[in-house]
């Protein structure tokens, strides 16, 4: 048995309990992961059963469809190709918006965090923009970006960008000032401080932002498709909804959740690699 210190992920799990307790529970690398997967599957199965029962047996059921009908609908979509086409459109919008929002929001967060005076000046304005319900700006999006994929990408990017910005910006406030000073004393200019200290330090905050932003990228893409489109999962959901087709609505939502779960697991895996040093004290 190896020690927790070589297993950042497990060690992180142990954080608030005693090291030994959690090591015992975790049970070892491979077995722990398998157990986690199995329990998750059990939870999922439980949810599905409850959903099926509610959907079948209660009057409320017709508002939430049920897993079998949803599965059948997803199957239909898969056969007709609608599923792949919709996923392709929405996923590409999501990823492009996510990337754009992350880059812009992250850079803005770091830069305003570094030139803190500017940050303090602009913070309220950024916040004011952030607090606009973006749907109210639908006409402006359309006017600027047309009705293609672009307005949806921009909407997703905006939603993501603000979240990333606030996380990273807040993170800059918690950087140890002495650490920065000492690195500057070693000869680092502002850019070097950002590259060598701020960015690595902020990765914990960035990952929080990424995790929070990812679903919003999807939401942005979908809401964008609600506003204007002829394709994509959002379009399919909206369309089903306007026909009171609950099976279709929930089939769309399930596909969306699946996508976000997959993306999220990828993100978590990346986080475990990058953040092994976090939470060990500076």
């Amino acid at each position: 048995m190896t020690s927790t210190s070589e297993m950042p992920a497990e060690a992180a799990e142990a954080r608030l309990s005693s090291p030994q307790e959690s090591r015992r529970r975790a049970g070892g690398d491979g077995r722990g992961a398998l157990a986690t997967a199995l329990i998750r599957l059990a939870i999922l199965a439980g949810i599905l059963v409850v959903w099926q029962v509610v959907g079948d047996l209660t009057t409320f059921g017709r508002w939430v469809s049920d897993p079998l009908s949803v599965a059948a609908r997803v199957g239909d979509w898969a056969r007709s190709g609608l599923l792949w086409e919709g996923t392709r459109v929405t996923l590409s919008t999501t990823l492009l918006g996510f990337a754009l929002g992350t880059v812009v929001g992250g850079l803005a967060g770091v830069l305003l965090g570094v030139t803190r005076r500017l940050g303090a000046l602009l913070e309220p304005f950024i916040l004011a923009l952030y607090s606009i319900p973006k749907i109210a700006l639908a006409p402006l999006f359309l006017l600027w970006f047309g009705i293609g994929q672009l307005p949806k990408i921009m909407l997703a990017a905006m939603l993501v960008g603000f979240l990333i910005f606030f996380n990273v910006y807040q993170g800059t406030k918690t950087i140890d000032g002495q650490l920065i000073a000492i690195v500057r004393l070693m000869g680092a200019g502002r850019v070097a401080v950002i590259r060598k200290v701020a960015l690595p330090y902020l990765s914990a905050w960035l990952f929080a932002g990424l995790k929070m932003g990812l679903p919003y990228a999807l939401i942005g893409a979908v809401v964008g498709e609600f506003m204007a489109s002829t394709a994509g999962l959002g379009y399919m959901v909206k369309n089903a909804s306007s026909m009171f087709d609950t099976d279709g609505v929930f089939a769309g939502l399930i596909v969306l959740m699946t996508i976000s779960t997959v993306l999220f697991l990828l993100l978590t895996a990346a986080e475990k690699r990058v953040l092994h040093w976090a939470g060990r004290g500076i």
Partner: protein
Amino acid sequence: MATPETTIGSTRRTEGLIRLAGVSKAFGDRLVMAGLDLTIGEGEFVCVVGPSGGGKSTLLNMISGLDEATTGVVSFRGRAVSGLNNEVGYITQRDLLLPWRTAANNIRLPLELRGWSRTAMAERVREILAMTGLDHAADSYPYELSGGMRKRVSIGRVLAYSPSVLLMDEPFASLDAQLRLQMHEELLRMWQDSRVTSVVFVTHDLVEAITLADRVVVIAGQPGRVDLELPIEIDRPRRVVDVQSHPRYADYFQRLWSALGHDQPTGGAQ
């Protein structure tokens, strides 16, 4: 240069490299230092001793520009220190390692900042790891290092780029005796080779202070000021292990000991 030459108790000092004149420092309304005057010459090795909380780290912070005097002037090479003073290398009391970098990469950091070539960096990092006894820990992250190892990384990181002026805040307090002797010798060697010209070295260990210094400065009092400046007139080059047998050693020890307000003599001064 406009700085007047001073000669108090220095054998090698040629001019005032660092000067503090009438410096006081208040944090809020707490005055921790008042009317402090101190000159440190080019090429001088000064040890600073004094009670915990007496203002030693604050002194180094002011010289490095990390902190600012409330009143009075801190000047470096005849110019008032304003903003960070890049000419000094500062080994802080707290080891401020970058937790996401291995020991080797922490040591590499200042070299990267100076744009060294890859091979030069690798070479230098190897040297420093060997010097600090960390060869086997090169690829460990700070959280995998023992307290003394972390401290050594933080020392090595500054020594790696050979800044001409060194500020050292209790650098060897958490090292074992052997390593400490080794580091003393290494430091004196670097200093005598003139790779490091001046050193301001804070310590609580009077033996260490007498062993290394040209002059020992006692900072004491509430608020702190220079209480005693004691030139150590023991020939250079010194063999670290011999200093304690030097005839003047006991006297130096005793004078420092009483300047620090201690009433009884202790073993080190026997």
